[in-house]
């Protein structure tokens, strides 16, 4: 029998995904190399003197308050951004889920903030957030009798400002997903509820929210992980400042490794962040599949 006439061979699927697998193994290799670096005193300026030092890097970092502050900042940033985006997203999606003139245009406009490179969006906001009356935001707030705010320059306001930028870029993501979710909801249960005499709030709480739960979990999954590992926005605006007020694990990892050449330290920060991202993504993907089952 001619070979070409056979059914797809058993190895064909592997053969087909092989190139992609190889490319990704190429990426896996540096990953494991990075894990190894956390156990060494590797310094970029002295690439030939790599010495295995066990867990000393971890001990140093975990005993440094900088690490704990970065961890806290990372969490505050991520959860605050997710909560705001979800809340805002739900409100706007509900308002957009009505046929009225121009709704299609508004929906198209939603993509705009998401498609601009995040770093560019961050720079746009940096202009708007300029301190003193030079910044347009401060100027406009002046009409409301609010004196100029330092925004990205203040130790408390910097983090708030960054979260605001994140919300600006990514709340359309939540809106679009929730809108898609709302529109795919079956119409009949709502009509049945109308006939059964349920009130609007009752319907929202007992039907809409539970039926949207896969969408909500999905938004948390994507937005939480992305804000845990946020880099561009912070780098372009505050570079972690002022005085480390906006330094997240990712930013700190960059500074340790690239600015201060301490590859071992940088990789510890990156690894901690990776573990967090991995755990959250595992838990949330599982939650998501369970929500879908329901």
């Amino acid at each position, binding site marked *: *029998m001619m070979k070409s*006439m*056979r*059914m797809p061979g058993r190895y064909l699927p592997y053969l087909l995904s092989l190139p992609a697998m190889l490319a990704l193994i190429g990426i896996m290799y540096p990953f494991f190399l990075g894990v190894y670096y956390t156990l060494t005193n590797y310094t970029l300026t002295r690439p030939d003197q790599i010495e295995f030092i066990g867990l000393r890097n971890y001990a140093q970092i975990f005993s440094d308050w900088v690490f704990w502050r970065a961890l806290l900042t990372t969490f505050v940033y991520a959860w605050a951004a997710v909560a705001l985006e979800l809340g805002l997203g739900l409100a706007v999606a509900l308002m957009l889920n009505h046929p009225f003139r121009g709704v299609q245009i508004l929906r198209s406009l939603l993509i705009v903030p998401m498609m601009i490179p995040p770093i560019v969006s961050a720079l746009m906001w940096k202009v708007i957030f300029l301190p003193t009356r030079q910044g347009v935001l401060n100027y406009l707030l002046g009409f409301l009798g609010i004196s100029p705010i330092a925004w990205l320059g203040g130790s408390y306001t910097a983090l708030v400002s960054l979260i605001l930028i994140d919300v600006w870029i990514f709340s359309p993501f939540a809106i679009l997903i929730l809108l898609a979710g709302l529109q795919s909801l079956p119409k009949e249960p709502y009509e049945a509820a109308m006939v059964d005499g349920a009130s609007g709030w009752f319907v929202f709480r007992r039907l809409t929210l539970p039926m949207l739960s896969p969408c909500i979990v999905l938004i948390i999954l994507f937005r939480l992980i992305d804000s845990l590992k946020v880099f561009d926005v912070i780098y372009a605006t505050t570079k972690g400042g002022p005085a480390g007020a906006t330094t997240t694990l990712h930013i700190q990892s960059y500074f340790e490794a690239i600015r201060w050449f301490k590859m071992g330290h940088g990789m510890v920060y990156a690894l901690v962040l990776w573990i967090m991202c991995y755990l959250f993504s595992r838990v949330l993907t599982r939650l998501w599949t369970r929500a879908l089952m329901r």
Partner: protein
Amino acid sequence: MANIVLDNVDKYYGDLHAIDHLQLQIRDREFFVILGASGAGKTTTLKMMAGVEPVDSGSIFMDGQDVTRWPPERREVAMVFESYALYGHLSVYKNMAFPLLAGRRKRLTASEVEQKVRRVAQLLGIDMLLQRRPAELSGGQRQRVALGRALVREPAAFLMDEPLSHLDAKIHHQMRSELRQLRECMGSTIVYVTHDYGEALALGDRIAILHEGKIMQVGTPGEVFHHPATRLVAESLGDPPMNVLPGRICCQDGRTFVEIQGQPLRVSGAVEGPSAATPPRQVDVGIRAQHIRATQAPSSRPFHLPGQVYVHEVLGDEGLLTVTVGPQHVMVLTSPEERFTPDERVYLSWEAEAMHLFCGQTGKNLQSHSV
């Protein structure tokens, strides 16, 4: 132009034994119907014949050749899928020409292809649709295109998977007669899968009844309808389906009786098994709705089964009476003019000849028939 033999074919989906030691012999130029409920393994069987589902064990022969390991493109079969499986990105014409151009063995000129496609399109009455895309067609039209795509070839066998199931009643009937006519000009073996007993009886030269991956019976429409081999076969043919009542079979004075709710009815003809020596045993009594008479007063006949009217449905030509007998519902065909009211008491009776007896345990038909 092929006979198809399935020899001990098995198919598993995970732990599910989807096809269980299937033995089938489909004759050359036969219109062979495989009838079964959804999940019985009909489509799997067909797809194994086409070669798009691999066989786990056993062999498939076409014209004596073992084709079990052949890829589909090498088997000379054409298939009509339940979902029609039209190529959405191609026009109707290209869909129909596809099998002529896809095969590597025969080289046809463009004009030959066009001629063949047009001839089949005309035959099916879709020649004005050739430039359309499948998405622009109605269900009935798509069905014709799917059929046409199979007909442009001259395969050894046509495999058809529920080709009429998505059509509404009126078109369904029309297509059924058209299929019957087409069958005469095709001259190839046709294997036809359906869950609709009406289609099976109307179209098939022979019918195989499949249940949970096993063949229950193979026979002509008359055989399977009038002499079902098992209770399952009897219940899967007919609308309303055959009523089945539990009974006991016993012998007295060399005559065989069946007892239903304490009422004895003499059985005509020979029954396997019981003799004076054996104790009474459980049987299932099968009786079709059109063979039962329902009367408001007990008849003078020795056998009448009391029951209560559940509902009476008037269907124009006939009436369908549902009667509660013990824990069960029994369906009775009546004339449309008869009147019954819910909960009214009625008496059911039938001729012994119309009755089928099935073994209570195995479901096997206990009456031997000379076919």
